């Protein structure tokens, strides 16, 4: 029996996974193509990414469904296959988790990943919140059906869109739901693009039933160390952090992340000491980063026990 993410977060600092998109590109995903289409076209390649994260020490992997909501899939003409794609993604991650458990890796969980719709709610855009809620709800149901252990909403730029995803998922599944927002550093501190603070976002999402709340993407691990206390102070639910591997340099029009796994892992340990209960990596991170964080977290746990 796999225990709930809620229990794991109480027990220890949970190690999430790292980037997915770049791992798929390294395996041949062409630019402009829907990464989620690979859940049905090349499930073995997607599973390989999950397997490597579990082998590196991840407790949880996130399904390859960041752009798996019907709104993003529609841009690729794949919205009519939304259920199939999300179900397959959860099954692939489930298979990787089961295989890792059999190898004696302890408890391995699958987070059903939900990312932004690409649409903007009023007053900036004219997306209908009820439509967003319904679409995210359908995605969550498909992820649950495929075997996800919990739903992970992430990289939301607008708190209101995160709420749409949270309410939509709550309406269609009984799974625990976590929610992460992406923040930018401004002169006066950290804010969403829409102007909400980390504390406002964390409080609102926790009130609406998220079992854990946090921040991911946009900023590097050093900035996340500054941001983390604002989240931890605001809520009693566990805090999740998934920073990028520093800020990218642009090289020939492509972002290049230069932070080393060791530096990232040192910051990840610091985040754990600051109260984060789940850490992982976002853009620019891969299994080497996760392996390095595993070592640091194990050291931290060892210190606490001794």
């Amino acid at each position, binding site marked *: 029996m796999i225990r709930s993410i809620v229990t794991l977060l109480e027990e220890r600092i949970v190690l999430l996974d790292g980037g997915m998109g770049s791992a798929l590109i390294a395996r041949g995903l062409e630019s402009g193509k829907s990464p989620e289409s690979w859940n049905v076209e090349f499930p073995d390649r997607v599973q390989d990414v999950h397997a490597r994260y579990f082998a590196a020490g991840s407790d949880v992997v996130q399904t390859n469904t960041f752009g798996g909501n019907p709104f993003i899939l529609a841009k690729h003409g794949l919205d009519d296959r939304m259920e199939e794609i999300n179900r397959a993604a959860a099954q692939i991650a489930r298979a990787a988790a089961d295989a890792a458990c059999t190898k004696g890796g302890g408890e391995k969980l699958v987070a059903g990943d939900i990312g932004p719709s690409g649409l903007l709610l009023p007053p900036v855009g004219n997306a209908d919140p009820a439509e967003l809620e319904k679409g995210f709800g359908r995605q969550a149901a498909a992820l649950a059906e495929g075997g996800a252990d919990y739903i992970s909403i992430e990289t939301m730029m607008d708190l209101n869109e995160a709420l749409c995803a949270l309410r939509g998922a709550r309406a269609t599944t009984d799974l625990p739901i976590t929610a992460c927002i992406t923040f930018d550093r401004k002169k006066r501190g950290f804010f969403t693009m829409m102007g909400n603070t980390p504390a406002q976002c964390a409080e609102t999402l926790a009130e609406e039933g998220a079992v854990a709340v946090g921040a991911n993407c946009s900023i590097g691990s050093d900035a996340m160390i500054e941001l983390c206390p604002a989240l931890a102070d605001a809520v009693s639910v566990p805090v999740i952090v998934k920073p990028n591997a520093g800020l990218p340099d*642009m090289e020939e029009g*492509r972002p290049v992340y230069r932070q080393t796994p060791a530096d990232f892992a040192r910051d990840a340990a610091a985040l754990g000491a600051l109260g984060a209960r789940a850490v992982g990596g976002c853009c620019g991170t891969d299994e080497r980063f996760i392996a390095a964080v595993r070592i640091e977290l194990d050291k931290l746990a060892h210190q606490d026990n001794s």
Partner: protein
Amino acid sequence: MEIKELFRKQAQSVLDGDAKAAAALAGDAVGAGVDLKACIDEGYVAGIHEVGRLWEEGEYFLPDLMQGADAMKAAMDVIRPELLKTGKGAASGPKVVIGTIEGDIHDIGKTLVSTFLEANGFSVIDLGRDVAVEKFADTAAAEEAKLVCLSALLTTTMPGHAKVIEILKERGLKSMVSVLVGGAPVTAGFADEIGADGFAPNAVEAVAVARRLTGFES
């Protein structure tokens, strides 16, 4: 109302993102026979510049920016027909074709630039997002546009910028139309490299560059 006070209120209506007040104040100016071009420059444009400054300072956020631009647009909708009537203002400003390159479904930046250009008097033809590269040239030719604005948020769609410029050159349109590029991964260096005429890192500067490239003052 003292004229300076009117300008101040007009600027404030943009800062507040209050489209109703912005339009009403424009109506007041029309009724009182105030110099409408001065209203634009010292009132609304001053307001939108302050909005841009506050955004760069991190005091204003995306909703403030959009509402400020909408307020400016509401005022311009009242003022522009009056300027046309009196023959004092240029007709509507130069035509601008704008869009996000195909493969790119992000359009926040593009929409902001589009709104800001419109607020500043340009005639904007917004092709939306995920636009085929040929369509930029087709529309620029059909509409006799003076400027094409291209946006990319993904590094993968940046080559599309170069492609649009190539097509404009192939069709002999490049001497008639300027190209302005922007978007998160786009730099001035990249703009130079692909032969774009201008680069803007944000919506406020996009207006300034668009003015320079088209020789248009609202």
